[in-house]
């Protein structure tokens, strides 16, 4: 972005309540290359305080001159630092966002949508959820789960349920957040990773992520599950979990369609009875969602 445009945007930027359709300006303060097509942008507000959010929610990020895209928050609410968004380059907007450099301005609207229900605000009093938690992430699907896993690992150390993180990726070079995976494992989470293809230099597992379910060691009758990744992966993983004895009500999935307004106004992200930007992206697998996942869309 040119310096002139930057100056105009900064001059016109007014802190305060600007309405949900008007982006707030954030500056890129760090850019982390996760894989060859995945980048994490760390953003700080140009003025005022950083927004509060819950893991699983998303923001609409504007790349000025290119457009707006729904991008999950990949940071932890516990981290007081910059907002983190992890972007996969899949089109003109996400490519422009991915190529943003330190110092560039990005428009941010949000946070929008539902969350993974892992924070203490979802529990009565000071109770801890002691059920095992199975987190299954496929590819970039780990990004919306990153903050949730942080919360769960901390809760587990304080007496909450055990955390089982199962990660699937196309190949070893496509695994994101390797440092976090190691850190979570050191803190007691059981972390299993499987890739679809690998050379003999890869010492981890090769196979479908659902193959990890049987080895994880969680207690199906007393667990909850958070799933995020390609929809086919979530469909098969949810089925496998139910077959193992997990209550469908205890499974949450993150669904994505064409999010545009973020407020449930425009209807672009409708899926059955849901407007995913407002009612989702995180929804219980049981009931309507299970039917919708099995329905053939045109």
């Amino acid at each position: 972005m040119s310096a002139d445009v930057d100056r105009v945007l900064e001059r016109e930027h007014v802190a305060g309540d600007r309405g949900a359709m008007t982006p707030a300006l954030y500056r890129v303060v760090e850019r982390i290359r996760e894989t060859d097509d995945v980048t994490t942008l760390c953003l700080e507000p140009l003025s005022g305080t950083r927004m509060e959010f819950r893991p699983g929610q998303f923001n609409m990020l504007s790349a000025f001159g290119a457009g707006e895209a729904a991008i999950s928050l990949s940071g932890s609410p516990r981290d007081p630092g910059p907002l983190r968004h992890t972007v996969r380059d899949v089109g003109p907007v996400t490519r422009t966002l991915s190529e943003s450099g330190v110092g560039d301005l990005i428009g941010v609207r949000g946070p929008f949508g539902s969350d993974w229900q892992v924070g203490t605000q979802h529990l009565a009093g000071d109770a801890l959820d002691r059920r095992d938690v199975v987190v299954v992430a496929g590819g970039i699907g780990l990004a919306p789960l990153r903050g949730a896993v942080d919360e769960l690992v901390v809760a587990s150390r304080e007496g909450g349920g055990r955390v089982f993180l199962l990660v699937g990726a196309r190949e070893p070079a496509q695994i994101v957040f390797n440092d976090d995976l190691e850190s979570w494992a050191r803190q007691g989470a059981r972390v299993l990773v499987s890739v679809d293809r690998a050379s003999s230099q890869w010492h981890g597992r090769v196979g479908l992520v659902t193959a990890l379910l049987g080895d994880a060691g969680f207690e199906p009758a007393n667990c909850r599950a958070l799933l995020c990744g390609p929809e086919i992966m979530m469909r098969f993983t949810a089925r496998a979990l139910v077959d193992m004895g997990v209550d469908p009500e205890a499974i949450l999935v993150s669904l994505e369609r064409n999010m545009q307004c973020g407020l449930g106004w425009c209807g672009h992200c409708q899926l059955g009875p849901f407007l995913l930007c407002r009612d989702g992206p995180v929804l219980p697998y049981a009931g309507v969602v299970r039917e919708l996942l099995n329905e053939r869309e045109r």
Partner: protein
Amino acid sequence: MTSSIAELVAAHPFMAGLSDDHLAVIVGCARNAAFDPGDLLCKEGASADTFYLLRRGRVSIDVHAPGRGPIVIETVGPGDVVGWSWLVPPYRWTFDARAKDAVGAVAFDGACLRTKLQDDPAFGLEMLSRVSSQLLARLQATRMRLLDLYGDHRER
């Protein structure tokens, strides 16, 4: 405490629920086997004469590609089985199976097993059902991976 081969066979998930009579039949073809990391359990093109129940350690199913070295198709571990080719002519391995760690397994003589399956059709059906179940699970997983789930399938 050292377990007998009959106990090792009976304890493996693949054999769960098998009757004592059938266990007694199959144990006659079994022996204990151990492999160091890097050892081959099966070698592509070689005679397929063994069926393995994995007890510990992981095994990679590899294929060698010129210029690319071994490509790992799948890894399997404790509770899994290795090798179907002993069951179907021409009884030849189509992939390498290599120990990734120290591997403990129960190895069955393929020719011995085939004879037992032919001699006792009820036992044969029982074993083929179990093998088919494993084959189906592997086939479905392979089909899923053919979809390249994590790839970028959107038009740019």
